[in-house]
Every structure is written in C-alpha cells, then in structure tokens.
C-alpha cells in the first residue's frame, strides 16, 4: 500500500471540504474493500478522509413506516438491530449474511453502497425496497443512484449520510453465495411494497444491480417466478459462473425469495 495523507474530520461538511481540497482523495468508511484494494495497489489515493469521527452518521431510527440507517452504521449493527428486525427482517438478515463477523463489525452500509460492487448484497435491498440515498448534497432514488459497475451518481466530494428504507408489507432476500468470499453469485430481493412487487437482482448483471420486471409481473400475477424473462446477454460470465448458470440461479433464487416473502 502506498502512503497517503490521513484526515479525521468530525463533521461530514469538513469531510466534504477535505475531499474537495485533496488531489485524489477517497472517503474511508469501514475500509473492508478500500484497504484490500489499496494493498493490491489497485487504488492509490493521495488522501484518505476517514468518517470515523462523524458520529452523527452512525445509528438506526425507525418510525413504523420508514427505517433510516446512518451511512457509517456497520453491517453487524444492522443485523443485530431490534428496530430493523421488527420492521424489515429481510434487511437485517441480508446484513447478517455479508462477509464474516469481523468484516461485519467494520464494514458499513454507506461504504458498500458508494462502492457499488456488482456482487454486493446491499444494492439489492436498496433497489428492491425503493430506498432513498441521502447525501451531503441531495436525495437520490435507488434507480438514480446505481449507475453501473462500481459506478454511482455520487460526485467526487459528495458523501452518503443515510439511507431511508420504506417499510414493505413483506420482503425476502435469498442469495447463492460464493463459498469463499460470501459475495453473491446471484442474489434476489423480493419486496411487497405499497407500490406493488419489486424484485432486484445483484451479482449477475454486467451493469450491476437491476430490477427484473418480468419476475415482478410473474409474482404479481400469482405465478411461480422463473428466469425466462431474463436476457442472458446482459449477465456476467467469470471464473465463478457462466451467464447461463447465473440466469438459471436467478430463477431459483427468485422462486425461493418469492416463497419466503409471500
């Protein structure tokens, strides 16, 4: 890992200012992806702006219709939260299935979303539940936030402060995970929301997380979902799985998630 200048602002406004002043700055949240990436020298930022001093970014609030999670809240805290378990148990379960216990004790929801790894779990919940990503500059609908592989709508000096999840009638997330990394080979989030059925697929798409409207239509019509509506041409092929296998898994995971969410 190349060395860098380290900053610990105590407010998110100061963090944004530090980012603006840095030549090639990066925000450090839990560091569970960024630090390994820097060790491999795939990233070599001039400055790291740590959010660990921004205590108002940590915490979970639930008012019955919305669960708001601060960006620096760890996966472990979301998984263990009585509020999240009561309002959106699928979200607590998803958080409890990320990585391993030690990664969950450091990794944060804001960091995961800002990174937008195409195989990460949280994007499926944010898109599947139609959550709102709150930043230092604006509020972004999930559909507008995710912009492709490791790409988001975030500007260089824009920082996620919280995520607002509308509480669904019911929801479930089922993933087929890579046994080594626990990243999703395919993960499907199914939610019964006030606006209808929403289905989000992670791990599979060449452009990252996506909504599967064909599967949404099947579940809405009371049918058992399958992957016939999924375009295999838009799916990833890598050392872990072919596009054809991922397409098959989308059907299987969707079926399980739909059954668990019904």
């Amino acid at each position, binding site marked *: 890992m190349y*060395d860098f200048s380290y900053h610990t602002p105590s407010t998110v406004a100061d963090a944004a200012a530090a980012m603006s002043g840095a030549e090639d700055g990066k925000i450090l949240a839990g*560091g569970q992806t960024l*630090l390994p990436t820097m060790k491999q020298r795939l990233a070599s930022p001039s400055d*790291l702006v740590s959010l660990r001093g921004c205590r108002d970014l940590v915490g979970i609030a639930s008012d019955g219709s919305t669960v708001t999670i601060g960006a620096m809240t760890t996966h472990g805290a979301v998984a263990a939260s009585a509020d999240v378990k009561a309002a959106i148990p699928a979200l607590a379960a998803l958080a409890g299935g990320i990585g*391993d216990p*030690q990664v969950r004790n*450091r990794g944060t929801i804001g960091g995961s979303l800002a990174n937008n790894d195409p195989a990460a779990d949280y994007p499926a919940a944010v898109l599947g539940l139609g959550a709102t990503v709150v930043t230092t500059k604006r509020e972004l609908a999930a559909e507008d936030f995710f912009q492709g592989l490791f790409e988001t709508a975030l500007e260089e000096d824009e920082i996620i402060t919280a995520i607002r999840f509308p509480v669904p009638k019911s929801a479930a997330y089922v993933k087929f995970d890579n046994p*080594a990394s626990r990243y999703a080979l395919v993960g499907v989030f199914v939610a019964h929301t006030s606006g209808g059925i929403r289905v989000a697929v992670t791990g599979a798409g060449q452009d990252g997380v996506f909504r599967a409207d064909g599967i949404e239509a099947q579940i809405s019509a009371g049918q058992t979902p399958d992957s016939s509506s999924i375009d295999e041409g838009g799916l990833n092929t890598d050392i872990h799985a072919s596009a054809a296998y991922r397409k098959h898994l989308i059907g299987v995971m969707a079926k399980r998630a739909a059954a668990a969410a019904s």
Partner: protein
Amino acid sequence: MPTVSMTVNGKQMSGDVESRTLLAQFIRETLDLTGTHIGCDTSQCGACVVHVNGDSVKSCTMLALEADGADVTTIEGLAQDGDDLHPMQEAFRDNHGLQCGFCTPGMVMSAIDLVKTNPNPSEHEIREWLEGNICRCTGYHNIVKSIAAGAAAMRGEKAAAE
C-alpha cells in the same frame, strides 16, 4: 509522521506510524505483541483477529490510525495473571483445539466475541461464526468442540465436552 495512541491490553500505548500502517503491523512491530498473527493479509483467514472496543475485527484490514483512542485487546491480554489462562484458551488446550497453532489466536479472539452475544451457541452457530477464521490444518472439529467447552466455562458451567 502521525502519532497513534490506544489502550492495548489495559495499558496506554502510543507510537509514531505511517498513515498506511495497519493495526496488525502496529501491534506486532511497534508493540512487539507477536501473538497476533498475519496469515493471508487479505482479510480472509482471521489469524489477525483482535478486539477493538469489544468487537472482533481483522487487524490486517484496519489502519492503526483508525484505532486511535480505542480499547484494544490482543491474545496476550486474555490471561491477565501469569499462568491463569482465559477459559476459552483453557478449553482449546483441554480439547486439543490446535494443531500447528498458527490460527489459534484469531480463533480464540473470534470465539470470545461470539460468546459475548451468544453465550450458548449451537455447533451450527459456531461453525457459521467461524466463516472468517481459516485453519489450514483443517482441525475444525476440535476447534468447534473447544469453543463449545469454552462457552460453557464462560457461563460458569463445567466444560460440557469432558
């Protein structure tokens, strides 16, 4: 060079570090506490697990500066008084929970964090919890047995495995 200060095993410690110094490096190279091992250096294996403010973390995937002001416990901090091992360490010894022993510090630190939130874990829960700890001798059977016995001892019961 930035200075970092933290409480390690109950003692106030500080040192000058590079920004990029990992917590595992600071513990091993600056503080000479070499019980914390670095196995993979890629946050897979868990040999480097320590407690930061009571939670188990992989010290190879945390900057030393991120632990500034924190309360850190390493494997050396468990047995406070000479020969009296922590019940979880004792259980690993009694149940032959180690072969080469390289992964053991991380296994023990991880196991104690499990018991903190789940005082009576099932075998399945122990195996799930060990997702982030790899034993290359593949001695998992006795590790799981050790953790069950250690949990029982920490609850104040006689080790169930005996």
